[in-house]
């Protein structure tokens, strides 16, 4: 029930936030903040009451009773569709990340939304509810439902409160995600049908669908459907082109949620579904997937370097960083998977923060064009320092979360394929190039007289507080990542056990 409550709180909270606009103009954001924090506190209280949390034991992937939480009730029994939610270490990490970044996103758009505030906060909360559902649903139909639930509010957020080119961006976002969602639905139905023909039972439950018997051909095609659906969301090269537009045009909170959380659903889907459901097919496909990941790393970095739009640059850096996630997942060993999970968490914070900074700049300067910025540090030293922190975080400075992630991914990947590792490692160099260029163009250099005259306001307490949360989180992840690793470890171990069935050996050095 806890998990249902988590989602319901957000859904109803969204409704409340929308209605609260009638009370006062500033009410929705407060309501939204309270709702998200309530949700977070509620989750933490429930967790603290569980003895299992202290000793996260390896959940057996196809035995839900070993999971942290499990909930199942019938929905459409005729087709074996049920409302089945479950929580394990990885889901828990993602849920926590979602709620924390949700609160950060609300804070990020504290002042920059001027029209239809209630509806905005409602969309934000509903989107979060969808994401929570995605991270917890283990009935494939329910998963698909939540997948759609998280996208539609997002579409509204871009289309209504976005920047100058929002219509195009929102439509592109919608078409890409919708098409991939459709692909996923088809794959789900195909998988269920295959399972039905093998066992005679209609079921959409993850636990039942694991180890579905199917022909190699079928497995390949269905796996590919899942893969593309998730990689579009991730986004992996070459399905990433919706992302720069969507990120650039979305309002700050939208960008934060998009980059921080929504992208992770793709990675989560790959880890949870695309590989474990089709272990052999995924293995056959792994080297292609890894090359795509490496291509994403390099391509994203080069394109980021060429951008003049502050937000677009960060968006492309996301493409580059998520390439590491793809690499980590398809290297499919513990090191790399842990790296991928770490990257999901760390990238959530670092990119969210950068988008917040971009949003603050947009709010103050009314432009995102870096050619018009310059020497902003002089007027906004606090913002500059914070930006510097997140820039070095995103270029993978050791001691911060992103480094742990990238290093683990590379370490795991190196054991699988050296040449891909070499290609991916160049991402560290190109990453430094675009990150520092971002810093140079916006905060360093001669101060632009236009802004000196207009008198810019530095970060205030609210913003610094929000940033501090993320700074502390990244440092913590960087020098003591063990809690996150421990949370994910048993799950990854069980997934690895599930997929590396006797005959399959993944390691293939050179």
């Amino acid at each position: 029930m806890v998990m249902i409550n988590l989602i319901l709180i957000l859904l109803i909270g969204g409704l409340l936030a929308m209605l609260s606009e009638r009370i006062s103009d500033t009410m929705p954001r407060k309501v939204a903040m309270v709702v998200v924090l309530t949700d977070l506190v509620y989750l933490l209280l429930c967790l603290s009451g569980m003895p299992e949390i202290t000793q996260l034991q390896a959940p057996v992937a196809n035995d839900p009773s070993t999971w942290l939480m499990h909930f199942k009730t019938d929905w459409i029994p005729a087709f074996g569709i049920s409302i089945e939610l479950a929580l394990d270490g990885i889901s828990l990490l993602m849920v926590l990340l979602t709620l924390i970044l949700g609160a950060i996103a609300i804070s990020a758009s504290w002042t920059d939304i001027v029209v239809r505030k209630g509806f905005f906060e409602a969309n934000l909360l509903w989107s979060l509810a969808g994401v929570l559902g995605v991270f917890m649903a283990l009935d494939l139909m329910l998963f698909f439902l939540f997948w759609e639930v998280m996208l539609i509010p997002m579409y509204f957020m871009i289309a209504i409160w976005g920047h100058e080119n929002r219509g195009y961006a929102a439509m592109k976002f919608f078409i890409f995600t919708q098409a991939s969602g459709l692909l996923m639905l088809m794959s789900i139905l195909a998988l269920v049908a295959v399972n039905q023909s093998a066992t005679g039972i209609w079921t959409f439950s993850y636990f039942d669908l694991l180890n579905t018997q199917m022909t190699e051909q079928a497995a390949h095609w269905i796996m590919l459907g899942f893969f593309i659906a998730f990689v579009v969301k991730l986004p992996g090269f070459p399905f990433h082109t919706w992302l720069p537009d969507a990120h650039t045009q979305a309002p700050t909170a939208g960008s934060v949620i998009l980059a921080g959380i929504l992208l992770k659903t793709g990675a989560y889907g790959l880890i949870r579904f695309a590989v474990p459901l089709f272990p052999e097919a995924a293995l056959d496909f792994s080297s292609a997937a890894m090359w795509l990941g490496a291509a994403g790393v390099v391509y994203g970095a080069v394109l980021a370097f060429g951008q003049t739009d502050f937000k677009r640059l960060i968006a492309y850096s996301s493409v580059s960083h998520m390439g590491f996630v793809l690499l980590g997942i398809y290297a499919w060993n513990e090191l790399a998977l842990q790296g991928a999970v770490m990257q999901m968490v760390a990238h959530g914070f670092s990119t969210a923060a950068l988008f917040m900074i971009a949003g603050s700049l947009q709010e103050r300067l009314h432009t995102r064009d870096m050619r018009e910025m310059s020497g902003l540090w002089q007027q906004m030293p606090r913002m500059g320092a914070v930006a510097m922190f997140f820039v070095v975080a995103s270029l993978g400075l050791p001691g911060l979360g992103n480094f742990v992630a990238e290093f683990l991914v590379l370490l795991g990947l190196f054991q699988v394929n050296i040449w891909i590792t070499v290609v991916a490692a160049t991402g560290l160099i190109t990453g430094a190039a675009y990150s520092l260029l971002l810093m140079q163009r916006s905060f360093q250099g001669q101060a632009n007289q236009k802004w000196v005259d207009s008198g810019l306001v530095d970060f205030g307490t609210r913003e610094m507080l929000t940033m501090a949360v993320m700074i502390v989180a990244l440092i913590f992840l960087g020098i003591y990542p063990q809690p996150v690793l421990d949370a994910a470890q048993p799950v990854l171990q069980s997934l690895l056990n599930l997929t590396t069935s006797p005959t399959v050996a993944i390691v293939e050095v050179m």
Partner: protein
Amino acid sequence: MSETIWLIPLIPLLSSVTLMLVGTRLKASQVGALGVGSVGISALLTLLLATEFMQNQQVIQLSLWTWMEVAGFAPGISFYFDGLTLVMMSVITGVGFLIHLFSTEFMEKDPSYARYFAYLNMFVAAMLVLVMADNLLLLYLGWEGVGVCSYLLVGFWYQHNANGYAARKAFIVTRIGDTAMAMGLLLLFTELGTLDIQTMVGEADQTWQVGATVPTIACLLLVCGAVGKSAQLPLHTWLPDAMAGPTPVSALIHAATMVTAGVYLIARTHELFLLAPIAMTVVAVIGITTSLMAAFTALMQTDIKRILAYSTISQIGYMFLALGVGAWSAGIFHLMTHAFFKALLFLGSGAIIHCLHHEHNIFKMGGLRTRMPVTFWSFMIGSSALAALPMTSGFFSKDQILLQAYQFPEIGPGLWVAGLLGALLTAIYSFRLVFVVFFGSVNTEPDKDTGWRMAVPLSILCLLAMVGGWFMIPVSEVFPASDGSHPAHWVEYVSISVPIVGVLVAYLIFYTGQLKVDRLANSSFGKSLGKLWLSGWGIDLLYDRLFVKPYYGLANKLKSEPVDALYGLIVTINQTLNQWLSSAQSGRMRWYIASMVAGLILVIMLAANLPEGAL
């Protein structure tokens, strides 16, 4: 004491964080006290540690916590302390302290005083972590940490785009090396299952034969990292540009400590290099080539800091030579003495720049001997040490290197000759600097002399540069002993006399003017050679053409997102289809009828062809 060595990096770090958070609200004196004091405490602690170590020679291993633990990969936040670490720590905290003190006067007028000390303290902390790390991953943390601090400090005066460019160049060029080094780490872990240095070398000894492929590749990758950080060929181009930072920064980071991290890395992992003779030869060759290249370049420079920068590159080349020929302790010894005299020279040049309104061109200086006596003597001593004149610290270390290079099998004498040529050039360019700046006519009048906060560090460093050669560095336990044989005496005599000849040449050319080089310099060959040397052998230009411009071009070309064009194609196809279909909906009755008829024809055709009973 041994339990608290973690305090040594922590104190500067805390000070740095404090300065970052509340630095703008503190008074300048408080900032200075905090910045200098924290490093001072670290220096004191290091001193205590040193005395303790001198008595019991005990290696300390201290593990604070496990950094991360994944599938057997478990690097710790843990420290390892032995003689080599002690030498490095002493240099970092000792020289670091002096430079911090010097900075309080040098940076006095700067509005970002607190930011400066925050970065500088951060650097000291990172550098200490680098040398104290007991595993390569923690070392890498320090390694990248100092890189970032270097970036921040080179670009300290961020208002000028050129500084920002230099800073980025420094970071990215070293990052290239770092990435290769990271690959080395991956390889080492994959092969040996640990990154813990002491365990690793033990494993390596058992796993690999001398000269096997894997250790050679691993060592070469580590060398790439070292080459980047220590500004050796081919990744040296960032260092001269890095002089854009404040001069004390150049003294601390780009002369005394960070740039020698590469030397430290190789020395620290020397057991691995002993398994890879090819890698060692590569190190020696890189070292000597860089040394000569940089020395020639230094001859032609006019910017005082650039001369010193190239001289640094050249001297680190000597250290690499030492490491390459297996003269480990000589290399580290030279690292230490170089830290003393090069810090001295940089601080001296800082004093000149400070008193001469940020003048960098040596030909606009002159006659400063009487105007700035403290600085003059600093320079005299520093240059003597740099030129390795007998009895100075540089003499002892460089002499050791040259002698051991001579004994290196096969290419040893060749290395020795090249090293001698380098030494000759070193003497010439360093005394060229002295004669041009301190003798002759006064071109720019200094508006003040150095204050005590500058004079004290200079004096102490003078002392160290003089007597540093008598120190015994406690690394005998760390490195394998050399065989103790000595080459023939004439080798030694030649080695000693070459620098003196060099000084003499400089004296004749730049002081008395008796030796005329104008004709050579004005010949077309001389001119183009001079130009080549002035531009650092044109390597910057080459890289610009070869890497930087193409990368910019690529980024610009890809900016329009060719992949998106693919999706654009889908859109175009849809639009075309839409046009076709909507043009069918023309409202022309006859067209409709015609198409209906065509459809009818088709239907009948199909119906007629259907098998019997299908309808």
